[in-house]
């Protein structure tokens, strides 16, 4: 079987904000031949089909997702990165080169390729868990969406959706889904969350023109071929059925980690993305990871910043790099915290983006104190000024990193 074989300096997999950010920065910094591969026909990632504002940074904060995506693409191309769309990385070559480079196998309309790179940056992003993965029982009717599918259907393909919709999840992405439904002419019957109502919500203007049902769990979908309703169980045991022909399961993001796993990278149990350090290094030398692959969904500008921040360590790797780092120490969280990112220590002095770690919690915590400890020794203690709430990032300063014993066991972060 014939394959086109080539070598590049850096191969970036995924042309969303993170991959494009890495590509722009690396190409501009003289990393050599930088190639970005995108499996979709258009680059830009998920923001392509987000028509709501809030992308980018001020003063251009009014940008919509598609405008932001185009700007990311333009920046990478202008910097000199080679951007190729409609080509898919299908796996890692079995016979890796001996010099620490990596070889990826690629399928595209022009045929099969095998590209060897001195550094690989994985920027494969995240997706929302669909109804099946959430184990929502019932029939298998049509009319069941994730936000990603809904936004593409409405904004990119102008496909009709139903007339009466229920949105599952009340994070920002849920509200984006509700906006998209209204754009498509559907009535949002309700938004449903299993979380308690936010204390602040009562003080704020209601965001939508629909009821928000809190402390309610989806127990099933009714309808055999077409959706007829969503059944709910409220915390007090009541059950109700919302009549609808469309349901959107939002949030619950999971990293698209297939390539990472196929490479045998160590994954973090919390994020389900590759375990990585403040230099975006994974467990495999020469393979870096950036963006929402690392921690599911953060804002596009965070993913982009991570991509750009990874350029310096990638360049150090290309240059032969510093001597091998000491054995990384894993970072882990205790429930109800879900994950911390980055989640392993790196070379001495390496600090995560903006000097802080990102965390998520499974349930609301009122001004928690985050305690960092290793082998029973307390390394730090930080009080949050605001509540930690599910679906939103909060942070832990990295000042204690120097106190980690490189020969010790896992560093644990506990909320008290």
């Amino acid at each position, binding site marked *: *079987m*014939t*394959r086109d074989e080539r070598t590049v300096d850096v191969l970036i997999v995924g042309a969303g904000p993170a991959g494009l950010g890495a590509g722009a920065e690396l190409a501009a910094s003289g990393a050599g031949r930088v190639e970005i591969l995108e*499996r*979709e026909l258009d680059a830009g990632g998920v923001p392509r089909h987000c028509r709501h504002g809030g992308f980018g940074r001020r003063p251009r904060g009014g940008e919509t997702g598609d405008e932001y995506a185009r700007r990311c693409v333009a920046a990478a191309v202008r910097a000199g990165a080679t951007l190729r769309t*409609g080509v*898919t990385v*299908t796996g890692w070559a079995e016979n890796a080169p001996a010099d620490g480079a990596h070889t990826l196998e690629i*399928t*595209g*309309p*022009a*045929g*099969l390729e095998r590209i060897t790179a001195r550094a690989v940056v994985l920027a494969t992003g995240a*997706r*929302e*868990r*669909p*109804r*099946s*993965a959430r*184990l929502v*029982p*019932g*029939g*298998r009717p*049509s009319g069941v*969406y*994730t936000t*990603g*599918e809904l936004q*593409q*259907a409405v904004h*990119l*393909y102008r*496909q009709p959706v139903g007339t009466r919709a229920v949105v599952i999840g009340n994070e920002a992405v849920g509200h984006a889904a509700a906006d998209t439904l209204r754009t498509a002419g559907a009535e949002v019957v309700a938004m449903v969350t299993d979380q308690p109502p936010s204390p602040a919500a009562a003080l704020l203007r209601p965001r939508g023109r629909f009821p928000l049902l809190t402390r309610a769990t989806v*127990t*099933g979908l009714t309808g*055999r071929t077409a959706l007829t309703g969503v059944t709910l169980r409220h915390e007090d045991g009541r059950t109700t059925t919302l009549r609808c022909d469309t349901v959107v399961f939002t949030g619950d993001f*999971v990293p698209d980690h*297939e390539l990472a*796993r196929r490479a045998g990278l160590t994954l973090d149990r919390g994020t389900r993305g590759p375990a990585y350090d403040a230099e975006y290094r994974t467990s495999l030398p020469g393979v870096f990871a950036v963006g929402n692959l690392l921690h599911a969904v953060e804002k596009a500008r965070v993913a982009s910043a991570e991509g750009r921040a990874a350029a310096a360590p990638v360049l150090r790797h290309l240059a032969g790099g510093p001597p091998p780092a000491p054995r990384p120490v894993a970072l882990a969280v205790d429930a109800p915290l879900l994950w911390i990112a980055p989640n392993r220590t790196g070379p001495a002095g390496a600090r995560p983006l903006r000097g802080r770690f990102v965390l998520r919690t499974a349930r609301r915590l009122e001004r928690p104190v985050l305690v960092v400890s290793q082998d029973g020794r307390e390394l730090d203690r930080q009080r949050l000024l605001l509540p930690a709430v599910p679906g939103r990032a909060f942070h832990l300063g990295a000042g204690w990193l120097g106190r980690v014993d490189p020969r010790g066991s896992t560093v644990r972060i506990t909320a008290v």
Partner: protein
Amino acid sequence: MTPTVTRAGELPDGDPYDVTVIGGGVVGTAIARELAKYPLRTALVEASDDIGNGTSKANTAILHTGFDAVPGSLEAGLVREGQRLLAEYAAGTGIPVERVGALLVAWDDEQRAVLPALLAKAERNGYHAARLLDADELYDREPRLGPGALGALEVPDESVICPWTTPLAYATQAVLAGVHLHLDCRVLHIDTGPDTHTLTTSRGPLRTRYLVNAAGLYADEIDRHLGHDTFTVTPRRGQLMVFDKLARDLVRHILLPVPTSAGKGVLVAPTVFGNVLLGPTSEDLGDKSDTASTADGLHFLREKGRRILPELLDEEVTAVYAGLRAATGQEDYRIQDHPDQRYVTVGGIRSTGLTASLAIGAHVTGLLTRTGLELGTARELPGITMPNLGEASPRPYLRADLIDRDPAYGTIVCHCERVTLGEIRDALNATVPARSLDGLRRRTRARGGRCQGFSCGPAVRALFEEARP
């Protein structure tokens, strides 16, 4: 000859069909394919919009050896013969099959005590390759198996097969050989005259000299139209969970439960698509269309799965579905000819029906001659090659030769399952084309992967709608 596949409008009038098969499942399509070898006018009528759309689409996708059939039963004979025929047919037409072998795992002393009897039963069924494994050998074969297993019966020839390509291959070959396939054609009433049956269908009358009832869950109802009231089909629901492709490395064999007094139990099996299947439940229902999954069913499966393969539960679930088996309260197939009516009933075809299908086709054709049908001289069926959905041999996205000829095979549309534009286009233009998004999924796997359409859903839908006549 132009293939005849209709979905709407009046049925062709004129002379009655020689034979009409009711039911386009794996059994009905196999019978139609067998009849297609003969110079007969044959019709295959199916109530839904696709072949293989009922019980056939939602099963455990195993090509059985028949080692555990009731010796001497009709089922035992047809499964053994069918296994041989289908394995050969699959190799010739490109239906994905993987001979992974099965392990019947004993988790307690009662189950372990049953294994020698099962080995003896396999021998009585003419299957001689099975053997007993002790716990060490078992864990050697299946290192990720949960702790506590005591031993196993190994059945090295049990295989997994593509349940969707099989009836599609039969139907394609039948239609190419001149069988008329009428979809969305529900049989509402049957008048049996001295020479012909007149079927009143949702698309008008259809006349036929001979009639085969392969209506699956509805075989008892069709039988009653002909005045027979000998069995009742009770839908037995089986809920199943499909785990992500990244779980595939956890399991090497079909892990079967040891059948005990408590019933047949839950299996874990690889699929030819590279996923892992967990199921089924077993629930007798009153409603022949209730293919809903339930919270209890999924909880039950997770508990069973946790014991069999603990790491499986950490993997993402790709799909959940339920199928309905046609249970008749009897242990054997209910295949019966009625010579005075030029009619054959093919009822009670249970989970082994996929394996036995080709043998059932030949058996039923034989029964038809007993009712007076003259077959004429058999001829070769047109050869076909089915699109490969299996992971064991290269799919189009890995084939430089195909992409070289047509770049559409290098254009991946569904990323999780790596389905190309070329395959989707082919499925929409095939002899028996996809007429729904679900039908397209069963022919190509598009939208069937871990993201369930998050990435490719609207693109696939656009291609489907563009092609819809």
